[in-house]
């Protein structure tokens, strides 16, 4: 392996590494530690400019309960779930079907449609902004969770189809041929042969899509206005008061809002990384 395995280096280097690594980690995570620290401060600290020192006033319980009691954070988090979970299900369902079609069958427009999905995934959001907003208005879906979820399902289909199609293409053809010989219809092949085999890809994608949608800020602010439907990314800024920023509440809210994707990341690390790095190892 590269670089030289640690146990083969000089003891001095080993110790340097063992001490250096936690230190480096501390510096690397400093921004997150800062958010944690701010979330347990009182407002007086912030008006006085005490951003980095120890809190003069530890308000862990107060801030974290205040952020639920006197702000709409709980509703924002619920909204985030209501947008993210249907998006994951919808995008994956559509992508499995589309990936199956593009990965198993040869037909003339196959590559063109595939490129459409790949290229469309890379367009800047801004070129979509005004028409998608108008479309949502006309469909009566503006400022609604359904409207935001529908957009995300449609957009994520690009990346997910690319992913599933490549994965399905790698599946052993013999299985499909064998099923055909046994008289299975194509639809049955999809359900009985392909779907069970793509489970790891589905797991990886669902973890990824969950994180992307949960952390989306741009579309949450473009398509949602009212607190009734606002997800937590757009809602965090509104935790600030009309005139006075309440950074301690915003920090507490940020920590709470970060928990679901973080939990998913730690629980499903393997799938997460598999999803991100798919294709990174193909020769």
């Amino acid at each position, binding site marked *: 392996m590269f670089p030289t395995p640690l146990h083969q280096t000089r003891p001095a280097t080993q110790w340097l590494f063992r001490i250096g690594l936690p230190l480096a980690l501390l510096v690397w995570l400093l921004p997150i530690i800062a958010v944690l620290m701010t979330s347990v401060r009182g*407002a007086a600290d912030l*008006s006085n*400019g005490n951003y980095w020192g120890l809190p003069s006033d530890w308000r862990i319980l107060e801030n974290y309960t205040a952020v639920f009691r006197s702000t709409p954070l709980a509703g924002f988090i619920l909204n985030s779930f209501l947008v993210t979970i249907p998006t994951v299900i919808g995008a994956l369902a559509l992508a499995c079907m589309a990936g199956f079609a593009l990965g198993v069958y040869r037909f003339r427009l196959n590559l063109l449609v595939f490129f459409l999905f790949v290229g469309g995934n890379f367009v800047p959001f801004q070129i979509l902004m005004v028409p998608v907003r108008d479309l949502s208005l006309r469909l009566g879906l503006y400022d609604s969770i359904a409207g935001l979820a529908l957009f995300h399902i449609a957009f994520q289909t690009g990346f997910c189809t690319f992913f599933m199609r490549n994965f399905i293409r790698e599946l052993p053809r013999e299985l499909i041929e064998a099923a055909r010989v046994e008289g299975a219809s194509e639809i049955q092949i999809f359900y009985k042969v392909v779907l069970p085999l793509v489970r790891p890809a589905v797991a990886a994608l669902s973890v990824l899509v969950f994180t992307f949608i949960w952390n989306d800020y741009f579309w949450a602010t473009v398509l949602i*206005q*009212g*607190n009734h439907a606002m997800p937590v990314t757009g*809602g965090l800024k*509104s935790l600030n008061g009309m005139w*006075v920023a309440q950074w301690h509440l915003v920090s507490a809210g940020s920590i709470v809002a970060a928990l679901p994707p973080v939990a998913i990341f730690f629980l499903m690390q393997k799938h997460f990384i598999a999803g991100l790095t798919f294709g990174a190892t193909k020769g």
Partner: protein
Amino acid sequence: MKQKHKHNLRKIALLSALLVASGWAISGDLVINTDASDPAPKAAFDALVKGFEKANPDVHVKVNTFDHEGYKTSIRNFLTAEAPDLANWYAGNRMAPFVNAGLFEDVSDVWAKEGLNESLKSAAASMTINGKKWGIPYTYYQWGVYYRKDIFAKLKIAEPKTWDDLIKACATLKANKVTPFAIGTKATWTTGGWFDYLDMRVNGYEFHMDLTSGKVPYTDARVQAVFDKWDQLTKPNYYLANHASYQWQEALPAFVKGDAAMYLMGNFAVAPMKEAGLKEDQLGFMQFPEITKGLPKAEDAPTDTLHIPAKAKNKVDAKRFLAYMAKPEVQTEMNGILGQLPVNKNATRPEDTYLKAGFNMLSNAYALGQFYDRDAPAEMAKAGMDGFQQYMLKPADRKAILERLEQVRQRVYK
């Protein structure tokens, strides 16, 4: 017999269902969209709605609360699609896009009927476009210079009444290592306050209104005169260093710690100042000093308002709501909760030291500006405030900045 009875019942049910489905309000239903998302404004609105429903039991009110910032974008959508019966907004030129697009309802009749041209006189001009009234103002707050009474006392500085007094005070402060003015311009609207006051004190209210409605070029000599005066503050570095990195409340620590001695701000700044530990005997409030001798003093007093969208369903009850909201006792109660000033001149004067000072100042003001970003149209306001921020950081760029603002003016005020 029974058959016919059932048949009739079914007909009535069907008819009601049709009526409800077609959106007709059977009873008095009122929908209000508001941006009162903060605790105090929200409580004030709740009290307002409760009071109205008690006085008008036949009307049921539904309140939709939007986030204060998000509201500014949402309003553009819900005025055209799914309009409520009443909506919050602001006075002055900020109303113009909606008035010109025919999205607000003319409420001059409510003003006439309730005698509001008298009782809401101070805000009447800012609610008028093309001679008609477009909404009801219910609260405003004062702008002025908050200053450290204790630092002034220590350095033996008297409250400045004229521009020369102010400059002398700044020099003394600076010599004693105190920054004269705290300010945070990361959100550029704070620069608008400075430009407003300098312009109104140098050239007067009428000129300022002409400028913000696009009748005067930004390269005009009178605008240059404003910047000449401003130079006396920017060139000697009398403003807080690196103010473009701070939001207005991030500049508060300097003021609270005594590193800066004055702050031109709205009254909403008092609460966080007190929360950070400033006591009333340390915190003074003064009107922005006179510059051009003898010029009557106008003040900035941004006003919050309620309007009826042109596409509202229940305009009759909406007008009743507006009339109710204009009453002196209602405005007293709301502003008691808001901590701001009632517009109705017959309302009860507030008790708080700073509000009392503000009430006196505004009741005697020559006229009320709505603040640069509400008096000037949105696009001009953004370019203007960005320009003012650039000027405050680099006073030498003045000529280029004013020329660019003039270009924007010519395009915006077509």
